[in-house]
């Protein structure tokens, strides 16, 4: 940040983005100049993805402004993105995928320049990549796809890449390839390009970034030259200061026998609330799904299931949108209350009104459609559905997503009381505060458990430490 700096490629001024009541981004001011390599770090839900989407034009800000030095939109300003989830067309070849984002390639014989361009880009970034420009993307490995996507982002494509946003670009790459990428990013920035580099591997961030920006709760909480940060300072800046959480799980309860033990190392005892934590998408949901599927049959449903599932993605695998609240609750207990295969509507209605009172679902009538409820209350319905069954183990896949604070408090106390009655909870949460409510926490990184924390060890700091790879990237 020198005074004689050239005009920034992109300037954000007090940019805000709200999704309903959720403030994903709460006033960010940021200027990215040619030659900058910004390491962007922050915990889940800090607003990293929202910020990236604002810059690349995927969404527009609720308030504030975004200005580019060339043209009006991100594309004409030369802003390119490599997304965390792969975004190639799997049915097309490598060269054809370049065509999708290269509007100048037209007419007869467009394939030859397309092949040449992607090959040149791959050769430059990843020497000895061994990827043929004519292979279909779905026959490539995940790492190769990621390499292709990065190569497309850096390819000239008729204009030139001026700002490349890399969102966890190395998560699928091995150390050698990641090293090649980092070397290329350095070269690119030295030649006047700019990069936003998002990674959970702090070693890499320190290695590559000239500036580090820390996001927390939609705000930039720290921003400085990379050499001014230490790892500890970075972790501190990312975390909340939540010292008063100590009262939870202080007294060591006595738990029953172990009821869950997976090959991965995930374990839970009767009456225990086990948290799964770490950065989003590092294998927690998969671990829970695996556990649930291994404990339930795909063919028969049982009157007394072993495991029940509380979905976090309500639209996708939670509510039955056309049904009433009552039906949404009772679906898990239909078998228990049925006689001769017919549903006993009295049992159904009693269960629904019972749970409505116990969880506090805010509705006059459980016959109202479930979509008449707010998101938080819909989630309560899903809790009720799971808890109404007799299953001793409850698996929860980030159930508090988009739920207001009042509902959360209700849910926490309900979990506590249910656990005291001997139920076991496995709870994946993207919020570290929630992990701190648990009796035991497993932190996931890259699909494996990187730490098991119990009792007083469950602190935000320790969880963050285990979520981010601290060692130097080779």
């Amino acid at each position: 940040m020198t005074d004689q700096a050239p005009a920034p490629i992109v300037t954000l001024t007090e940019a805000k983005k709200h999704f309903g009541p959720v403030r994903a981004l709460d006033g960010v001011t940021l200027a990215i100049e040619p030659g900058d390599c910004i390491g962007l770090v922050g915990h889940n839900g800090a607003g990293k993805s929202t910020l990236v989407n604002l810059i690349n034009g995927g969404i527009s800000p609720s308030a504030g402004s975004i200005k580019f030095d060339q043209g009006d939109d991100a594309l004409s300003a030369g802003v390119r993105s490599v997304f965390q989830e792969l975004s190639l067309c799997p049915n097309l070849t490598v060269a054809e995928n370049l065509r999708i984002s290269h509007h100048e390639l037209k007419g007869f014989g467009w394939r030859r320049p397309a092949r040449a361009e992607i090959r040149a880009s791959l050769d430059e970034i990843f020497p000895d990549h061994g990827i043929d420009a004519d292979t279909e993307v779905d026959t490539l490995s995940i790492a190769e796809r990621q390499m292709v996507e990065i190569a497309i982002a850096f390819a000239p494509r008729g204009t030139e890449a001026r700002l490349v946003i890399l969102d966890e670009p190395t998560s699928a790459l091995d150390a050698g390839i990641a090293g090649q990428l980092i070397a290329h990013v350095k070269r690119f920035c030295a030649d006047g390009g700019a990069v936003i580099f998002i990674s959970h591997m702090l070693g890499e961030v320190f290695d590559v970034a000239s500036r580090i920006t820390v996001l927390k709760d939609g705000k930039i909480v720290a921003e400085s030259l990379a050499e001014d940060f230490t790892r500890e300072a970075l972790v501190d800046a990312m975390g909340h200061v939540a010292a008063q959480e100590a009262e939870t799980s202080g007294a060591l309860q006595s738990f029953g026998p172990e009821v869950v033990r997976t090959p991965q190392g995930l374990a839970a005892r009767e009456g225990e609330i086990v948290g799964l934590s770490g950065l989003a998408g590092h294998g927690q949901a998969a671990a829970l799904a695996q556990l649930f599927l291994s404990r339930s049959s795909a063919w028969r449903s049982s009157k007394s299931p072993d495991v029940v599932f509380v979905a976090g993605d309500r639209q996708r695998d939670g509510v039955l949108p056309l049904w009433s609240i009552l039906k949404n609750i009772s679906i898990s207990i239909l078998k228990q209350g049925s006689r001769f295969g017919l549903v006993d509507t009295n049992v159904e209605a009693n269960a629904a009104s019972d749970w409505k009172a116990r969880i506090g679902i805010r509705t006059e009538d459980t016959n109202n459609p479930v979509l008449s409820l707010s998101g938080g209350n819909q989630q309560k319905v899903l809790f009720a559905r799971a808890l109404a069954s007799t299953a001793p183990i409850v698996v929860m896949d980030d159930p508090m997503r988009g739920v207001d604070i009042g509902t959360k408090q209700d849910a926490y106390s309900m979990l506590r009381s249910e656990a005291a009655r001997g139920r076991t909870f496995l709870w994946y949460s993207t919020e570290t505060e929630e992990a701190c409510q648990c009796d035991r926490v497993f932190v996931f990184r890259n699909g494996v458990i990187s730490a098991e924390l119990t009792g007083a060890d469950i602190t935000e700091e320790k969880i963050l430490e285990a979520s981010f790879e601290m060692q130097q990237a080779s």
Partner: protein
Amino acid sequence: MNTLSRYRIILPVVSLVVLLAATFWMQPRAMSYFGLNLLFNLAVPIALATMAQMMIIMVNDIDLSLGAFVSLVACITATYLLDTPVLGLAMLVALILAYAAMGAMIHALELPAIVVTLGMSFVWGGFALFILPSPGGASPDWLRALMTVKPPFAPMAVVASILIAVVTHLLIIRSALGTVLRGVGGNTRSVARAGWSVLKLKACAYGLAGFFGVLAGMALVGLTTSADANIALRYTLLSIAGVILGGGEFVGGKVSPVGAVIGALTLTLAASFLSFLRLSPDWQIGAQGAILILVLTARLIFSRKGAET
């Protein structure tokens, strides 16, 4: 090219060759210029309808109105195009535009294509009945001449099939536009992120489908010399089967125009083969289904093996 993508075209070819060999073995006289033309005559409109269906499947939708649409085109061809060519042509162009508009609407309003096209099938059917309440009409002479032309070396049906395959291969697999259209099927979001208007692309895919649907209806009238409002209702399912048989997938933008033409030929041949077996027509639909299941099973096994290696 790895083995998996090569299997995609090998399997339809193998199924056609096997079926053709079985047919020739049962009925050696079919192995002639005239015999081949007779066997594959009706494959031309089916191949064109399959191309139309492929355009829709390519962008992850499905068209249940195609049979009714082809019937409507046939009715217009046998009446208006014959009597008042300019008006007839204008109507056919309007139908193509209507198809493009349908595609745009499906995308813009996020409607399920399966429902919209099912609804539209009744609209097309209604128009067809309105135009031609009872079977009749006649084929324009030039169309009749075109469909009964006798090229040297190979019969019309074979030449036409090859022509359709080559043109659509160039259009869908080789051209830049076709690549982007397949990209819509593969990953709509990444195409949109690259700055394309998915609305226009979908309209384009549906417009192409309408165009090939119109060609199918005209080719059909050229062969049958008259039309009827229900003449092509089976084409809906035949075209879907043809696309899948030819190595296409329902989702993911994986289509093969050459394979789809071969799939259409295979389906037509299957019908003839079953009559050579003296199978009652009542059983033919079921037997065609059995052939379809057989080929799809083979494909599944191949692709599983491909995934293992």
